[in-house]
C-alpha cells in the first residue's frame, strides 16, 4: 500500500504576527513547525503502513527550508519525502496549492500507485480547509473529510470504512480506494521518533522537484498567477454589546422555562407587545 501525506511547514502560531500594511503573515524570525493538523494524518498513515505494510511518502510544497519538516516526518517513521520548491510556487493560494500538490501526487502515483492521500483538516496559518478537498477534486478521488477514526481497510476489495463527525452525530462512511482523507484533531497522537529513524532522516535524500520536475505544464496555474484569492483586509470581529443570559433550568418544566424566557423578552423590550400586530401584518 502506498500512502501520500501532504504536510505543510507553518509558523508556530503562538508566535505569529500579521503585517499591518500588507495584511500578510510575517514569517521572518518565527520558528516553524509542522502544521499540527497534519501530525494527526501522518500518524494515521504510519499506523496503516505498520498494519498493512507498504510505504508512506510525505509531500510538501514550500521554500527549500521546508525540508526540515519533511525530515521531522521521516524521523517519525515516514519512508520517503518529496519537496516541491520553485519560485513559481511562491504566493500560492489554496487553488494554486492544490493544483501543484495534485500534479506532484500524479507523478508520485505514476512511479508507485497511490492508494490513499492524507491531508490535514486545515492549516493553522490559513485555516481554509480547502487544500485537501481541492486535491481530491482535481484528482477525481473519493473524499472523506473530518474523519475521526478509520474503522477498517480492506485491501482485497479496496474499500475503507471511516467514522466522520457530522452535526448531531457520527456518520459511518465507506468508499473505494484510492481516496483522500482529512482528519480531526485529537484522533491520535503522533509517535516519538526512534533513534534509527532519526538517523535515517538526518542522512536521507529528500527528493526535490521544481515545477517542471513535478510535471507542471501550465505554469500560470501556479503561485501568484494561479491564485485568484485576494486578501482585502484582516480584522478581528467587533465583540457584540449584548450579553448572553444564563437561564436557570433546575427543577423547572420546559413550559415554565419557555414562559420565563418570553416574560424576560417582553420586560426587556417594553414596546414589543404593541409592535407585534404590526409585525404579524408585515409578514
Amino acid at each position, binding site marked *: 500500500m502506498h500512502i501520500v501525506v501532504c504536510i505543510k511547514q507553518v509558523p508556530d502560531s503562538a508566535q505569529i504576527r500579521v503585517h499591518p500594511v500588507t495584511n500578510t503573515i510575517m514569517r521572518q524570525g518565527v520558528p516553524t513547525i509542522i502544521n499540527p493538523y497534519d501530525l494527526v494524518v501522518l500518524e494515521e498513515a504510519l499506523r496503516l503502513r505498520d498494519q498493512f505494510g507498504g510505504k508512506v511518502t510525505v509531500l510538501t510544497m514550500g521554500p527549500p527550508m521546508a525540508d*526540515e519538516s519533511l*525530515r*521531522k516526518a521521516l*524521523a517519525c517513521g515516514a519512508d520517503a519525502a518529496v519537496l516541491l520548491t520553485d519560485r513559481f510556487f511562491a504566493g500560492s493560494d489554496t487553488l494554486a496549492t492544490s493544483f501543484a500538490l495534485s500534479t506532484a501526487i500524479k507523478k508520485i502515483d505514476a512511479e508507485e500507485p497511490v492508494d490513499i492521500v492524507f491531508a490535514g483538516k486545515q492549516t493553522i496559518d490559513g485555516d481554509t480547509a480547502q487544500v485537501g478537498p481541492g486535491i481530491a477534486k482535481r484528482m477525481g478521488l473519493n473524499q472523506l473529510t473530518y474523519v475521526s477514526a478509520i474503522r477498517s481497510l480492506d485491501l482485497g476489495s479496496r474499500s475503507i470504512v471511516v467514522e466522520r463527525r457530522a452535526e448531531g452525530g457520527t456518520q459511518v462512511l465507506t468508499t473505494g480506494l484510492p481516496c483522500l482523507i482529512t482528519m480531526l484533531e485529537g484522533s491520535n497522537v503522533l509517535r*516519538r*521518533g*526512534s*533513534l*534509527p529513524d*532519526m*538517523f535515517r*532522516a*538526518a*542522512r536521507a535524500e529528500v527528493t526535490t522537484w521544481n515545477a517542471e520536475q513535478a510535471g507542471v505544464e501550465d505554469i500560470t496555474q501556479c503561485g501568484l498567477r494561479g491564485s485568484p484569492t485576494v486578501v482585502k483586509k484582516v480584522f478581528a470581529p467587533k465583540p457584540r454589546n449584548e450579553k448572553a443570559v444564563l437561564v436557570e433550568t433546575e427543577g423547572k418544566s420546559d413550559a415554565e422555562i419557555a414562559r420565563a424566557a418570553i416574560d424576560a423578552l417582553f420586560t426587556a423590550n417594553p414596546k414589543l407587545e404593541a409592535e407585534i400586530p404590526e409585525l404579524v401584518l408585515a409578514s
Partner: protein
Amino acid sequence: MTYKAPLSDILTTLDKALGYAALLDGSAFGGLEWDAVEGILDEAGKFAASVLAPTNRTGDLEGVTLKEGVVTLPQGFKEAYAQWAELGWNGVAAPEAFGGMGFSTAIALATFEIWDGANMALGTGPTLTLGAIDLLLDHASDALKDTYLPKLVSGAWMATMHLTEAQAGSDVGALRTRAVPQGDGTYRLFGEKIFITFGEHDLTENIIHLVLARLPDAPPGTKGISLFLVPKILVNDDGSLGARNDVHCVGVEHKLGIHASPTCTMLHGREDGAMGWLVGEENRGLACMFTMMNAARLWTAIQGVALGEASFQKARDYALERVQGRDPATGKQGTTIIHHPDVRRNLLTMKALVLASRAICLSCAATLDEAAQAEGKEKAALMARAGLLTPIAKAFSTDAGLQATSIGVQIHGGMGFVEETGAAQFLRDARIPPIYEGTNGIQAIDLVTRKIPQAGGAVVASVLDGFSRDLEGFGDTLPPSVLSATQAAVGDLRVATELMLTLGTEAPVDALGIATPYLRLFGLTMGGVLLAKGAAGTNDPGWRAVTRFLAEDMLPETSALLAGLRARGGAVAATTPDLFEAM
C-alpha cells in the same frame, strides 16, 4: 517544574567550548549535520522529561524488593525502560554491525546526562550495559559477540559488572571467586559478589554478568584474575533462552541513595556452579575489565553533572518563588530570595561546577571520538590523552555533583532538608558516584602515579600547552579579568604538575597524600579554560556570567591549592596510623 534537559548548555559546550561541530563535519560518524545532533538531543530531552522524570521520586520512595530471588523495580520502571530501549536509545554509540547507530561517544554521553538528570537510578542499569558492550567488542570471541551483542545493543538484555567481594573492593586483586574449567571450553563459577548494580531485576528477560574470578592454578593478586561471561539464563545454540544458570541474587542493599537501582549480593554456584565462558585470555581478566571500567568511569562522571544540573534547576526555580526578607538593593520588603546576593552566589557556584564538569566529561569523550578515527601514533597519543582526562572527569565531576546538590539543598533552606521537595534526593543520589567505579581517592592516585608520568610527562605537557594555546587565541573577546584569572590558573597547574612529577619520583608515598587536591586543581583549571573558550564563542548571557564568576570567584582557589601542594604532603606523611588511635 520538572527536569528540563539543558540543551542549550550542552550544545554550547560541544560546539563552542570543544569545537565538536567541526570535528563531526566530514567525520566517520556518517556525516550528520549539526542540526540533526540538536534534533536528537532535543528528542532525548522530551523523552526524559515526559517518561523518565516522572518515575524519579516515586522510584526513590518505593525502592526495590527482593522476594525468593526475584528483584522487582518500582512501578513504571519496566515500562519506561522498555519504551526507551524500543526507541533505540541504548545504541547511540554501538557499532552498526550489532544493531547500533555507530555514532559518537560524546553525543552518547550527552544523552546519558539527560537520562541521569531525569532518573539516575534507572540510568545506572544501561550505563553498565554500555560498558559491557565495549568490553565484549574489544575482548570477546566472535561466537560470544554474535550471541550476546545484538541483544545487549538493542537493550533487550542488560549487563552487569561483578568485581567487588567483601574482602575485595578497591583492591580487586584480593578477590576469591573460583572458576573451574570443565574441559569443554566452559567453566563453572563459585563465589559471592557484593554490591552488584542491577545484578537482578525484572526489566529484561535475561541478564548478562561479566564476572572476575580465579582459575585453580592462577597466580595470586591481579595477575591471576580472569574474566567470564555468565548469563542469568543460558542461551541455546539457536539463540532461544534455555535453563536458569546457577547464579542468584541473595540480598539487596538498603542505601543512602539511588533507591531504585538494585544493589545485589550475587551468589555464583549454589549447586553445580554458574556456567561461564572465558572472555579474553586466562589471567588477563583485569586488563579486559579495565576497558569496561574506563568507559564506565566517564559514564559515572556524567552522573555527577546530571545531578548537579537537575539540582540547579530545582534550586533556581525555588529561589525565583520563595519570598523572604528585604531586597538589599531596593529595600523592598517581601522579595523573592533570588534578590539576595548570597543566594545568587550559591546558584552561580552550582552552575559553574556543572558547566565545568560537563565540559571536562565531553572533552574526554570527544578525545575518544577523535581517537576512534585516528590511526597509529596519533591514535595512541589521543588514547593517552583520554586516559589522562578520565580520572579527572570521574573525580572532579562527581565531587562537583555532590557539592552542587548540597548547595541545592541549602538554597531550599529547611524545605531542602525535608524530603518532599526532592532536593534532598539529588544530594543522596549524588553521594554514590564518588565511591563506585573506583573511589575518587583512587582516581586521584591513578592520575598522579600513572597518568601524568605517562611518556615522561609528555602527555600532560601537551594538554597544558593546549590550554595555553586556547588562551592566546581569545584576544579581546573575553573580559580581562576572565583572561587573567584563567592564565593564572593554568600557570598554577603547570607548577603543580612539575611538583607532582618530581615528588612522584622523590617521595612517591608523600605524593599519594596530596593527589586529591592536585586533581581538584587540574579540574578547576581545565573547567575554567573550557568555559572561557565557550564564552568567547557565545552570546549566551548566562554562560558568560557563569564564566566570569568561575574565573573571578572560584579559580583563585588554584593558587591556594598550589600553596598546599608546595608543602609536599609533609603534614600527612608526618602522621602515623597509631596517632589516630589516640585522637
